[in-house]
C-alpha cells in the first residue's frame, strides 16, 4: 500500500564531523549534541548538563564513533587480547563485529536521514487506500494507523447515513507537526485542520505528538465535513449544524488493535467550555443556535445540542432526518452561497420544527440545558486536562488545581499539563510541590525544555546559593534544548524581576 513518491530525490545534508542523532518515537529528532549510551537509555551531553532519555521513548539512535568494548575482568581481558569481542551473546573476531556494526550504523544513518529528509514537503511520502490519497511527512507506521482509521470512519459513516461512494478519492495531507502544517497548508495560526470544499478538494491536518488521541479527534472532526459534503456535493451545510455534527463525530474513539471506532462520546474539551459559560452566568438560546447566529459557540453549545439529539432515542431518528433533509429534500429553500447552495437561519428553524414535530422551541431548549447539566460529564484524563486549563485561563486557580490533580491521577503525561500545574502551585506559594511535580514531568519527557525553564524559576524563588546556581544552569539548559523558543514566559518573568529586584533570599530549607 505504501509507496515512495516516484522519482524522489532525497536531499541529504552533509553530516558534520560527529553527527549523533536521536530519533524519538513521537517524531522528534535531536541532533547537534553529543550522545552516549547509558543504562536503559541515552545520555545527551548538553553544555549545561546531562539529559537522560529512556530507551522507551527512543525509536532510533546514531552515535558516531562509539567506544568499543571495555573488559571488566581478567577472563574478558584475555579474550580481548586474542582479538575477540562479545557481540550479541557470542565472542567473535573484532573485525567481524566491527564490520557488522559499521553496516548497521550505515543502515541506521540512512534510515534516520531519510526520515529527516521526508519531513520536507518536497520529499513527502505518498500512498493510496480504497477511498483516500495520502501525502504526508511523518513516519509511515503512524500514517498506516491513520489510514485504517479513516477507512473505517468512511465505512461507518457512509453506511449509517446512506451515502454513495464518490468517483474520486479524497486527497489527505498529513503533516508531522503544527509548524509544518501552518507553513505548507497555509492555515492561519489557531487553525488545527481544514477541509477544502472547493476543487481541488483536500483535507489537511497534523500529528500532535503530545496527544496522539487529539490528532484522531481533529481528523474525525475535519473528515466529517467531507463525509457530510458527500450527501450533496452542490450543497454546503450551514456553520451551525456543520460544525456541531463534526464535533459530535470528533469525539469518536478508535481502537487500533480491533480496528473499530465507536461514536457518541463526550467532547470533554467542548463540554468544559459550555460549563465555563454556565458558570459565568451564560446560556445559549436554541432559537439562536438553529438560526445560525452563534458563531464560535456552534463548536461548543452546538455540539452539546447535536449530542443531545443524536443520543436521545426519541429524537435521534428525527434529527437525522432533519440533517439529511437540509441537503436533499426538495421542499427546503436553498440559497446561492457563491460556490453552491446553503440554507439560511429561518429556513433551518422551519425544517427543524417540521422534522422534530415541534411548534415551540422553548420546551426543547429547557430539556437540552437540563441534558447538559445532568447527562454530560467530564471524567477522563484529557477532559480533566482541558477543564484545568480552562479554569486557569479564567483566573480560577483553586478549581484548576483540583482538575490538574485529577488529570495526573488519571495518567496524564503531557509536559504542558505538568508545567501549567507547576505554575499554578508556584502562584499558590507551594514551590516544593511544584519542584517535585516538574522533576516527575522531566522523567516523562526529558526533552521538554519548558519544564526546565519553570523548574529554574521555582528554584530561584526558593533562594539559596546552590539553588540559584542550579536555576541558572537549568535556564540555560532549557534554551540549549530548544534554542528556537527563547521567550519562555518564566525566563521573561525572571529577567523582569531580576531587572527590578534581587532574587528572593528565603532560608534555604524553606519548601
Amino acid at each position, binding site marked *: 500500500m505504501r509507496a515512495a513518491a516516484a522519482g524522489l530525490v532525497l*536531499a541529504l545534508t552533509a553530516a558534520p564531523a560527529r553527527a549523533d542523532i536521536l530519533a524519538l518515537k513521537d517524531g522528534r529528532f535531536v541532533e547537534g549534541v553529543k550522545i552516549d549510551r547509558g543504562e536503559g537509555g541515552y545520555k545527551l551531553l548538553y553544555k549545561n548538563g546531562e539529559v537522560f532519555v529512556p530507551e522507551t521513548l527512543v525509536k532510533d539512535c546514531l552515535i558516531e564513533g562509539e567506544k568499543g568494548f571495555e573488559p571488566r575482568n581478567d577472563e574478558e581481558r584475555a579474550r580481548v587480547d586474542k582479538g575477540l569481542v562479545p557481540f550479541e551473546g557470542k565472542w567473535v573476531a573484532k573485525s567481524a563485529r566491527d564490520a557488522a556494526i559499521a553496516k548497521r550504523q550505515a543502515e541506521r544513518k540512512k534510515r534516520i536521514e531519510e526520515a529527516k529528509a521526508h519531513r*520536507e*514537503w*518536497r520529499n513527502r511520502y505518498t500512498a493510496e487506500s480504497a477511498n483516500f490519497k495520502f501525502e504526508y511527512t511523518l513516519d509511515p507506521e503512524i500514517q498506516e494507523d491513520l489510514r485504517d482509521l479513516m477507512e473505517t470512519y468512511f465505512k461507518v459513516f457512509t453506511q449509517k447515513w446512506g451515502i454513495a461512494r464518490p468517483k474520486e478519492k479524497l486527497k489527505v*495531507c498529513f503533516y508531522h507537526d503544527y*509548524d509544518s502544517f501552518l*507553513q*505548507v*497548508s*497555509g*492555515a492561519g495560526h489557531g487553525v488545527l485542520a*481544514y477541509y*477544502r470544499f472547493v476543487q481541488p478538494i483536500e483535507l*489537511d491536518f497534523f500529528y500532535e505528538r503530545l496527544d496522539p488521541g487529539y490528532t484522531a479527534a481533529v481528523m474525525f472532526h475535519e473528515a466529517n465535513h467531507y463525509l457530510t459534503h458527500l450527501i450533496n456535493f452542490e450543497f454546503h451545510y450551514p456553520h451551525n449544524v456543520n460544525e456541531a455534527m463534526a464535533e459530535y463525530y470528533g469525539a469518536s474513539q478508535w481502537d487500533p488493535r480491533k480496528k473499530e471506532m465507536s461514536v457518541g462520546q463526550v467532547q470533554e474539551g467542548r463540554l468544559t467550555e459550555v460549563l465555563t459559560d454556565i*458558570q*459565568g*452566568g*451564560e446560556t445559549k438560546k436554541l432559537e*439562536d443556535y438553529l438560526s445560525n*447566529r452563534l*458563531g464560535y459557540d456552534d463548536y461548543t453549545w452546538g455540539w452539546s445540542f447535536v449530542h443531545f439529539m443524536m443520543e436521545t432515542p426519541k429524537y435521534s431518528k428525527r434529527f437525522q432526518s432533519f440533517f439529511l433533509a437540509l441537503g436533499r429534500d426538495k421542499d427546503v429553500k436553498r440559497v446561492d452561497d457563491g460556490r453552491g447552495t446553503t440554507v439560511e437561519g429561518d429556513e433551518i428553524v422551519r425544517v427543524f420544527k417540521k422534522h422534530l414535530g415541534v411548534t415551540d422551541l422553548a420546551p426543547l431548549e429547557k430539556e437540552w440545558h437540563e441534558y447538559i447539566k445532568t447527562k454530560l460529564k467530564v471524567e477522563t484524563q484529557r477532559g480533566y486536562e482541558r477543564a484545568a486549563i480552562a479554569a486557569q485561563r*479564567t*483566573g*480560577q*486557580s*483553586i*478549581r484548576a488545581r*483540583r482538575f490538574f490533580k485529577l488529570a495526573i491521577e488519571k495518567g496524564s503525561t503531557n509536559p504542558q499539563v505538568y508545567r501549567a500545574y507547576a505554575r499554578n502551585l508556584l502562584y499558590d506559594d507551594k514551590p516544593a510541590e511544584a519542584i517535585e511535580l516538574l522533576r516527575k514531568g522531566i522523567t516523562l519527557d526529558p526533552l521538554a525544555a519548558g519544564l526546565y525553564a519553570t523548574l529554574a524559576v521555582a528554584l530561584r524563588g526558593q533562594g539559596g546559593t546552590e539553588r540559584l546556581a542550579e536555576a541558572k544552569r537549568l535556564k540555560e539548559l532549557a*534554551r540549549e534544548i530548544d534554542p528556537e523558543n*527563547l*521567550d519562555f514566559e518564566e*525566563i*521573561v518573568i525572571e*529577567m*523582569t524581576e*531580576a*531587572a*527590578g529586584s534581587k532574587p528572593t533570599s528565603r532560608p534555604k530549607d524553606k519548601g
Partner: protein
Amino acid sequence: MFQDLAVVVAALAAAFPPAQAGAGLHKDEELGFQMEVPKDWRAVPLAASEKWVVAKYISNRELQSKKEWWSGHTPEMRVILFPTEVTKERGPKVTKVKDGPTLVKFRSPFSDYKSYLKQNAEGGYYVAKEEPTTVNNIEATCLEIRFEKLTVPRHAVAWVFKGEDAEWAVHFEALEDYWEKLAPDFTRCLRTFKFIPRKGSVTARAGDNDLDFDSIFEVGKTSIAERATKRAALFERELQTAVDRLPAGWIRKKSPHFYAFSHSDERHTARVLEQAEALVAWLTQNFSWVGDGLPGPAILRICKGWEEFRAFHDTSNDAMFVRSFEVVAYKDTEGYGFGSWGVNGAVANLWFADKNPRLRWGMPPWLNTGISAIFGGSSAKGGKVEFKLDEWEREALRQIRQKGKLVTARQLLGADYDELRKFENSWLQCGLFLRYLWTGPKSASTKDLFKKYVQAYLAVVEEEEKAEEAAGKKENKPKTEEEEEARFKARRQETKRQADKVFQRIFGSWSEADWAAFERGYADFAD
C-alpha cells in the same frame, strides 16, 4: 508646531536622496549594494516602521490568474537585510527604567530568510529546491519556493547573499501561470547583485528601537502638554523616516493638518487632502467636547493605485501600523469605490486617539461599529463632509425593515460584541442608529442625547478604572472555589455591567412611554 515641522521636513528632504528610484539599477550607497531591477518596474515606499525590507519594487502591471477568477497579483521584488549583529540577538531583552517600569522587548523575530518567510508568507508554501551558487564572488543560496495551498498559486525565487556582516535575501515572486516567462529575467537581475562601498551601517534599521507610541495614549498618567510634546517628537521621527524612504517620482504637499506624500496625480491628491481636512474640521466642530487632548498632524500617503497601496502595506510582520500617525490612501482606478473608506476611518481614529484615547480604544460596541460605518462612507464636497448612504446600504436597510429585523435602540445600546454579531447587518444598523442620535430626536428628553450618553459613558469608564486600580491594590487571593467563581462571573459580565451602568445613568428616569416614543421616532427615521 506645524510650521516648525515643515522646515525640518524640507531640510531632511534635501539631505537624503532616495535609494529607491525608478526601475533599472537599484543602487544603495548607504547600505552598500546594487542590482538591476526588471525594466519598467516601480519602487514602492517603505513604511517608517519597516526594519527588514530595504528595497521593494513591483511590476508596472497586475497579472490575472488563468485558472482562478478574480485572482490578480503584481510581480514583485524585495530585498531583505539580515544583519548578523541583529539576528544573533534573539529572545527577550529586559530594561529597568530608573524609577519607572521594567520594559520587556523581544529582539529579532527572524534568524534568517527562512524564518522571515515563515512569518511573512501569504498562503501555504514549501521550499521546492535549495542549492548553492556564487554571484560576483559572493556566496549565495538559491531557494525556489512554491505557494500552492489556500492561495492563488505563485512561485518565488530567493537568492540569499552572504556578506561579511549580513545576509541579503533578494526575493522575486509572481503567479505560477507566468513563471516560466518571467523567471529568466528575475535570474538575470539576481546575477547582477554586488556589494559597493558602504557609507552607512547595516544595523541602522533592524537595530532600531520601536517608537514608544503607547505612552502618548496613557490618559490620566501624564499631562496633556506632556503627551502633546511626546507626540510631536514621535511624529517628527516618523516624518523624517517617511521622507528618507520616499522613492523618486512622489510629490509632497502640505495642508493645515497633513503632510501628503503622493504618487497619484495633482487633482486626486488635492481631493484626498480636501476630504481629510474636511473630516478633521467636522470632527473639531462637532466632537471637541469628547476630550481635552490636542490632535496633532499626520502623514497622508496617497498611492498610485490598489497594487501600490497593497505593496506598501505588505510590510514585515513586526512593523507597527496600529498606532502610527500615517493615513494611507490610493487612487481607485478600478471603480470599486473603496478608495476613501480607509482614509476616513484612519483620520477619525487618529483624531479620537489624540483627543481622548480612552474613548478611541474603549468605545461601546454599537458606537465603535456605528462610527466605522458612518465615517467609512463619508465624502467631502466644497470642503464640507457629507454622510450619505450609498445604494447598496439603502437596499440592505430596506430589506432589514421589510424582514422585520430592525433591532430596537434599547437592544443596540445594551449589546456587547457577541450580541451585535447576531443582528442582521449590525454594522449598518449601528450606523443608522448613530445618524438618528445625531440628527433625529428633538424632544426635551432627547435633546443632546448623544453628547450626554458619551459623557456619561466616559465618566463610568473613568470611575471603573479608578475602582479597579483601588481594588487591585487591596485585593486578596480568593480562598475557595466559590469565591473564585463569583469573581469570574463578575468579570464575565463586566461589559454588560458597564453598559447597564451607563444605561441607568442616562435612561434611568425614562418611563416606558418615553421609550416607546423614542423607539417610534427611531423606526420612523429608519423608514
